[in-house]
């Protein structure tokens, strides 16, 4: 199960970089077409790849019938249609970006990745971090006028833990007392440490979890109405959807979604009255669409940015964002041969990972840790594996496979990354092994990671809140639903516990560093690179800056001077 953090899903209509764009198209050959088409750019790069993702026809959606009637105060942006309209049920960044516009959480991230109050007016962290009390704003309401109460928050969060239909990001609530028991079916909802009284929500934790104020900004933890229709579990917009966020979705076709400002939004009606989200560009180049004035904000490929930066008209409208994301390789550590730390070390030392990244993109930032730059408390030490070819061969021999002899065929599976072919080539040359590479569509890949993780895999993980816990704790702690490789190490777990148990930033950073040293030694994962993205944004459009979690906040958009 992919918990927390956002897997970068198939991107919205945007172009792929040459070798670094999430690529995965249906059948292998579909890629051939991809080269001639616009690329794909992902919120995450789980394989940010070299072809173009071709949006599959959603046959039950009515075809677009031309641009809907738009008033003067509107903006047209490129975005992804949510895979489901229920925020508890999505686990990819694209869906989260869409739903974050219509469902609000207790806190929110601003453009500088600072946690800000949203539905909650304030909060207190007490009991040495084991209790957080949120106070909701006065008079907040859903789009139909019904008040938003603490009960709505509790019910929305319990839906995330519903053992019958758990959220792919259920681990966001994993530190709440009784949450894991309820999730696993061994406990009850009544025993989950979320109490609501009027406009107050008290959350009790099994261990210190001051980070939770930040985690509460995740779209997964957004507040939904009690009567959210069952149809919201699908990709089609339910009729008259009642929302808690800045925008009410009015219509959806197979190429666009129309949003209208919610007059009952807690912060007041958003400056832009209508947002038309283009979910498909019909295989046209995003740059062409932008130049034709058909769209005001659109992600583009890095390879397009290279020439655009020198172009008189487009250059000043070019934007670059750094996301709090990391691409990493992982091993399923419960099955041979990657249950051997020596084998994992051999793989880590056999490749010059930094060089691989820089060959693909000289401006890319190779990862030095599983925790992206920009997250306070990540430390500055380099925890990345370094190439040591002799060491790699020695480690493989120590695992019982001298010169690769007897090493089983293993498979690396991804949803279409830029590096897989190079990684396989390096490993084969250095270690004398054979590595198959399989690429799957993102949805199938996500499901596969949940149900039957491959021997070796790769993910692009975007933070859903800016904290080391969202990477180290959620991705590697024993029992976490996001721990795809099912790695377990007591020393690592103890370090994570120490980090959670202290309110001293220096001690916390030290504990996280201890944890990362264990990761460096035991190699359950190999961090590869941090993420960034490019976009074109129309002159005069204010607030069009992606947050570190990869979203535009439509409520912060406005036209200069209008």
């Amino acid at each position, binding site marked *: 199960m992919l918990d927390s953090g956002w897997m970068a899903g198939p991107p919205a209509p945007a172009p792929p970089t040459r070798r670094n764009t999430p690529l995965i198209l249906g059948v*292998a050959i579909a890629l*051939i077409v991809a080269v001639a088409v616009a690329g794909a750019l992902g919120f995450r790069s789980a394989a940010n790849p070299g072809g173009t993702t071709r949006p599959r026809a959603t046959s039950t959606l009515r075809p677009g019938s031309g641009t809907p009637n738009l008033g003067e105060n509107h903006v047209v942006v490129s975005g992804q249609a949510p895979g489901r309209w229920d925020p508890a049920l999505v686990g990819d960044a694209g869906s989260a970006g869409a739903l974050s516009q219509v469902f609000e959480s207790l806190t929110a991230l601003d453009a500088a990745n600072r946690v800000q109050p949203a539905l909650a007016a304030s909060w207190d962290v007490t009991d040495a971090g084991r209790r957080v009390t949120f106070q909701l704003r006065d008079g907040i309401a859903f789009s139909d006028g019904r008040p938003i109460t603490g009960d709505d928050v509790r019910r929305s969060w319990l839906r995330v833990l519903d053992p019958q239909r758990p959220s792919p990001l259920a681990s966001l609530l994993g530190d709440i007392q009784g949450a894991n028991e309820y999730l696993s079916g061994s406990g009850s909802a009544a025993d989950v440490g979320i109490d609501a009284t009027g406009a107050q929500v008290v959350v009790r934790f099994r261990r210190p979890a001051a980070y939770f104020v930040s985690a509460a900004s995740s779209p997964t933890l957004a507040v939904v109405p009690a009567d959210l229709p069952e149809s919201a579990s699908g990709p089609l917009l339910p009729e008259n959807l009642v929302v808690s966020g800045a925008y009410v979705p009015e219509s959806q076709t197979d190429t666009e979604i129309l949003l209208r400002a919610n007059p009952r939004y807690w912060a007041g009606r958003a400056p832009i009255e209508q947002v038309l989200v283009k979910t498909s560009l019909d295989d046209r180049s995003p740059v062409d669409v932008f*130049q034709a004035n058909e769209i005001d904000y659109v992600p583009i490929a890095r390879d397009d940015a*290279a*020439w655009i930066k020198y172009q008189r008209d487009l250059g000043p409208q*070019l934007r670059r964002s750094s996301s709090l994301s990391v691409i990493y390789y992982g091993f399923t550590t419960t099955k041979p041969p990657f249950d051997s730390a020596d084998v994992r070390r051999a793989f880590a030392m056999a490749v010059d990972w930094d060089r691989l990244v820089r060959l693909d993109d000289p401006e890319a930032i190779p990862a030095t840790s599983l925790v992206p730059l920009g997250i306070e408390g990540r430390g500055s030490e380099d925890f990345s594996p370094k190439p040591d070819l002799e060491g790699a061969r020695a480690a493989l021999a120590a695992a019982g496979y001298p010169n690769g002899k007897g090493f089983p065929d293993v498979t690396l599976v991804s949803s279409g990354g830029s590096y897989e072919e190079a990684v396989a080539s390096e490993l084969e040359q250095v270690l004398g092994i054979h590595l198959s590479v399989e690429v799957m569509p993102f949805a199938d890949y996500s499901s596969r990671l949940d149900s039957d993780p491959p021997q070796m895999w790769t993910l692009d993980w975007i933070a859903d809140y800016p904290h080391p816990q969202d990477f180290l704790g959620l991705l590697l702690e024993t029992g976490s639903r996001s721990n795809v490789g099912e790695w377990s190490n007591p020393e690592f777990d103890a370090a994570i516990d120490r980090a959670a148990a202290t309110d001293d930033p220096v001690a916390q950073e030290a504990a996280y560093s201890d944890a990362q040293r264990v990761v460096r030694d035991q190699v359950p994962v190999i961090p590869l690179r941090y993420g960034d993205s490019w976009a074109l944004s129309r002159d005069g459009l204010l607030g069009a800056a992606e947050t570190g979690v990869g979203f535009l906040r439509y409520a912060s958009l406005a036209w200069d001077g209008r």
Partner: protein
Amino acid sequence: MSRRVTAWVAAIALLAAMLVPGPGTLAAAADVTFGAPSATATLGQPLVVTSTFTAPQRPTRVELLSHLPSERIVSVETADVATEPGGGFRATLTEQGHVLPNTTLLYRFRVTLPDGSSALGPEASATVTDDRFDWRTLDGELVRLHWYDGDDAFAQRAVQIGDEAVRGAEELLGVQETERIDFFIYAAEGEFRDALGPGTRENVGGQAVASIRTLFGLIRPSEINSDWVDVLVTHELTHLVFNTAVDNPYHLPPRWLNEGLAVFRSQGYTVGDRALVSQAARNGELIPLDGLAGLFPTGDGFSLAYAESASGVSYMIDTFGQEALVKLIRSYASGVTDDEAFSAAIGRTAAVLNDEWLASLGASAPEPLGPRPAPPGPTPPGWADVPIAVSAGAGFGPPRLGALLPLVR
């Protein structure tokens, strides 16, 4: 003639991996039996791949594994499974997306049972056909021409040009092509674009797809006896040989080098291109070579990008000699960075070469006009003044105020 040639030598990363059962293959999978798989693969229609199979239990998943013969990455997609009336199952995968003509796909089904064991079906192949025309075929030494409009003399000429272009590129780049190259010539723009599929830029007149060793070209009846045939064939085949010369899994050469060589070999650095480049230099509109490393501009910048590419290659040959250019191109096959390649071949980095090339044109290196930070937008009441940071070490007690999380730019 306006620039119409482009090529997409970029190979697609689909590999032909080993499809042997992995260590998880257990006894139960041995009881799976497959019928002969089949596929319908016609341009403009969904690609449908199907196979019957029997299994002791209903599988947990059935996947289609497919790859191009020349590639190692295997694409895996979940197939639909239906129960057959007479027992057993039928797996079907329908791909709605566009697939280029002449694409050959190797495919097989994989059945995974509840115990985790898996079985692989027999491998088969299918080639996408464009059955809209009565194609005629003419084989040359290496090039096989497919055409439906024009006489035998046209075909003979095209094949001859193709074979000579391949030989010339082979000699220049020091590689040898051994596999047949298919060249499909369309006589009308609509037919050509339908073959290439949606998203093809309107100024594309040819396309080389190295991964399927196929070229697609648009040659209208009125152009059959024109120089366009020579230009198109030579340009696209140069791309294909270039791809062979630089093939590596790590890093592709800058696109201007690839396109520049193709233009230079098919047309030279023409008067028209020189004029375009000179005018852009005067107007301060030149795009530096590093801006042409990836995708090319659309619209007005499209032709200029090709002209600059030809100019860059011409400059290199004039300044350092053809041998250095070839050394540069060939070095990419070993997976080097641009700076490593340029430094080894001509003793200076790509950036220095760029500056010298610009200087030769009387231009200076343009300053980038972007990216620029997004101008800030409105924020909800209280946000701008009271940022509340909760970060590592935010600790317990009341949230701390004022700490910012720096973004990496």
